[in-house]
């Protein structure tokens, strides 16, 4: 045994591992984005990136979580454990990119602190379908952050192994939160069965493997061994154990590893001090019990790591009588030396057919072949998920935001019933004239027109900004507005009164017009709800989107009976199926829906 042990930091094996993880991730992101832009060319870059990083994080989380039970079921997977923390940190970085982009897209540039908005914009619940899904993802990300930040062995030493391990078991809570985040978020809007099937498949894989491994482990713990009169328990025979290997058994609820080596038998705790790895599934290398997870080592006779390391595990008194191995089930203090029991060195041993690997040793040939196949299988799975998830996304609408393309408009600015520019109007056009072009206005970000713009209401103005268009509807984002030099206030108020079209009861969805008409893809549904709430709260005009059975859609601008735009009073009904009763009226080439909060209710049942 050497006296010059030192920690192995980086190795060719780790580099190959990281290269494989990076390659698989790059393959997934590139393919998902390519398929997404090919099948949904209308998607915005921001949404595509949010989805790419979100699905990549979910996929990597599945890989991280399957490694543990796979190693329980087949030890050839153990090399995947060696560098699992790099895989975990990579997964966290993808989740962080997803969360940061979503936070920016849905919550920045609004009327609330983005983090406050993240936690409150979706409102209360009342039903599973309305349950806020973004805070679930945020909470999962916070847990994953804690895990990634403490993943280095420095923190393992600072926190102590039990605390560190308990903290990192939080990955299961994070997984449960992520599943809820996806089921109550994306899957509420995305109706393609393939997407639900992918989530179900991942869930079945994770849970099936864990339950399978847990049942196998439970069988070991269920075995009851009775103590003999002298307090020793017979745990098996010497010839059952391969040379430099161990037999694992449960004594008094604790796992014990009984090692055979050089004509001797020693028994130590099966639980590695590093990360609770199964020492009994390791091997004696250089005279030390070597953990199969990360290669931590302990001397079999006293359970102590060789200097300079200080880890120690409990030991057990052991003796051999007539080939039978007997162990005292009571553990001795960690590091207590116990004289190994000896036996006839001629006792036969079963052949050790299992290749053994820890990261600082070279990978045996048979494991190299196996892991090439594993990486190939993962690549195939990543390609399959990227293609299926990419092509299964719902249509996002043909809206367009002509961002960066500055346009100039002139006309009469009116603040009511909605803030709009009455283009080609000289102040005397009747509101009932459908040839009158009325252009609703919004401000930059998640805001309505600025107070400076609205102060020009009733005057002829020139405005600069960008068009937002979808179908026959359009909206204009105002960058700046100024009164025309010879403008004067319009005095014909009666001409501005909406032209009644009659009463109506309609089913549809309340949206923020700016996002729905093209700024966001998607600009409707639950996954966009928080953003819609933020936009309407900030002054973007609320609109009612009604569809008919022939495949037509109408956008109606929501106005109160008092003649002002409806907005904040509707926030709890945004992005849900609702039924509204009110009066329709024409304002130039737009139709407004005059109603109020009390006349709008949730409509969750299909039209009969």
């Amino acid at each position: 045994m050497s006296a010059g042990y030192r920690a192995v930091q980086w190795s060719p094996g780790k580099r190959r591992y990281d290269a494989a993880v990076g390659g698989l991730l790059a393959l997934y992101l590139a393919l998902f984005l390519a398929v997404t832009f090919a099948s949904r060319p209308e998607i915005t870059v921001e949404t595509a990136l949010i989805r790419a990083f979100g699905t990549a994080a979910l996929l990597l989380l599945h890989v991280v979580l399957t490694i543990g039970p796979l190693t329980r079921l087949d030890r050839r997977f153990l090399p995947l454990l060696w560098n699992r923390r790099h895989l975990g940190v990579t997964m966290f970085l993808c989740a962080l990119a997803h969360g940061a982009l979503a936070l920016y897209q849905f919550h920045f540039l609004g009327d609330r602190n983005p983090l406050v908005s993240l936690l409150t914009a979706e409102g209360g619940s009342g039903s599973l379908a309305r349950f806020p899904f973004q805070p679930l993802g945020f909470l999962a990300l916070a847990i994953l952050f804690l895990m990634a930040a403490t993943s280095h062995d420095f923190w393992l030493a600072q926190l102590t192994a039990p605390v560190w391990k308990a903290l990192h078991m939080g990955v299961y809570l994070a997984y449960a939160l992520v599943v809820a985040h996806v089921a109550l978020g994306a899957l509420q809007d995305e109706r393609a069965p393939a997407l639900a099937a992918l989530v179900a498949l991942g869930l079945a894989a994770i849970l099936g493997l864990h339950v399978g491994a847990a049942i196998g482990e439970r069988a070991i713990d269920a075995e009851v061994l009775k103590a003999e009169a002298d307090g020793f328990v017979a745990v098996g025979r010497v010839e059952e154990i391969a040379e430099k290997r161990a037999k694992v058994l449960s004594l008094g609820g604790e796992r014990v590893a009984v090692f055979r080596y050089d004509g001797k038998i020693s028994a130590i705790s099966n639980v590695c001090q590093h990360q609770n790895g199964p020492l009994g599934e390791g091997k004696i290398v250089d005279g030390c019990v070597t953990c199969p997870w990360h290669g931590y080592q302990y001397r079999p006779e006293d359970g102590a790591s060789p200097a300079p390391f200080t880890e120690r595990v409990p030991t057990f008194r052991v003796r051999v009588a007539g080939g039978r191995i007997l162990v005292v089930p009571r553990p001795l203090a960690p590091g207590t030396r116990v004289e190994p029991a000896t036996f006839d060195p001629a006792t036969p041993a079963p052949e050790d057919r299992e290749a053994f690997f820890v990261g600082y040793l070279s990978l045996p040939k048979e494991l190299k072949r196996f892991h090439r196949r594993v990486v190939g299988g993962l690549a195939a799975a990543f390609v399959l998920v990227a293609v299926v998830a990419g092509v299964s996304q719902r249509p996002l609408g043909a809206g367009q935001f002509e961002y960066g393309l500055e346009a100039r408009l002139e006309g009469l600015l009116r603040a009511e019933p909605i803030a709009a520019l009455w283009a080609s109007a000289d102040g005397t056009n009747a509101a009932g004239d459908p040839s009158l072009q009325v252009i609703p206005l919004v401000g930059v970000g998640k805001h309505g027109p600025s107070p400076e713009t609205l102060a020009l209401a009733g005057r002829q103005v020139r405005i600069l900004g960008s068009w937002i268009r979808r179908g026959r509807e359009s909206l204009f984002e105002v960058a700046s507005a100024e009164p025309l030099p010879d403008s004067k206030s319009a005095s014909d108020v009666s001409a501005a009164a909406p032209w009644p079209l009659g009463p109506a009861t309609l089913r549809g969805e309340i949206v923020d017009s700016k996002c729905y008409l093209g700024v966001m893809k998607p600009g409707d549904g639950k996954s966009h709800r928080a953003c819609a709430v933020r936009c309407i709260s900030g002054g973007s005009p609320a609109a009612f989107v009604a569809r008919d059975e022939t495949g037509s859609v109408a956008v109606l601008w929501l106005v109160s009976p008092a003649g002002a735009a409806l907005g904040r009073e509707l926030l709890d009904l945004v992005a849900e199926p609702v039924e509204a009763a009110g009066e329709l009226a024409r304002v130039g080439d737009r139709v407004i829906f005059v109603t109020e909060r009390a006349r709008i209710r949730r409509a969750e049942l299909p039209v009969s």
Partner: protein
Amino acid sequence: MIRSHRARHFWFVLALAVLLPLLVLLALRARPQWPANAELPAGVERSPDDTRDAR
């Protein structure tokens, strides 16, 4: 002494195996219906529904 975490977490794993699929099933069942109107009122301008397949 550290107890075997695998034995300790058997019931935790089993609980997750029951609760998570149940949550997903309930969430899928709770997805809102998006009812179309039989027809849109006269005088209302309309566009072709560019997301019709989504619902």
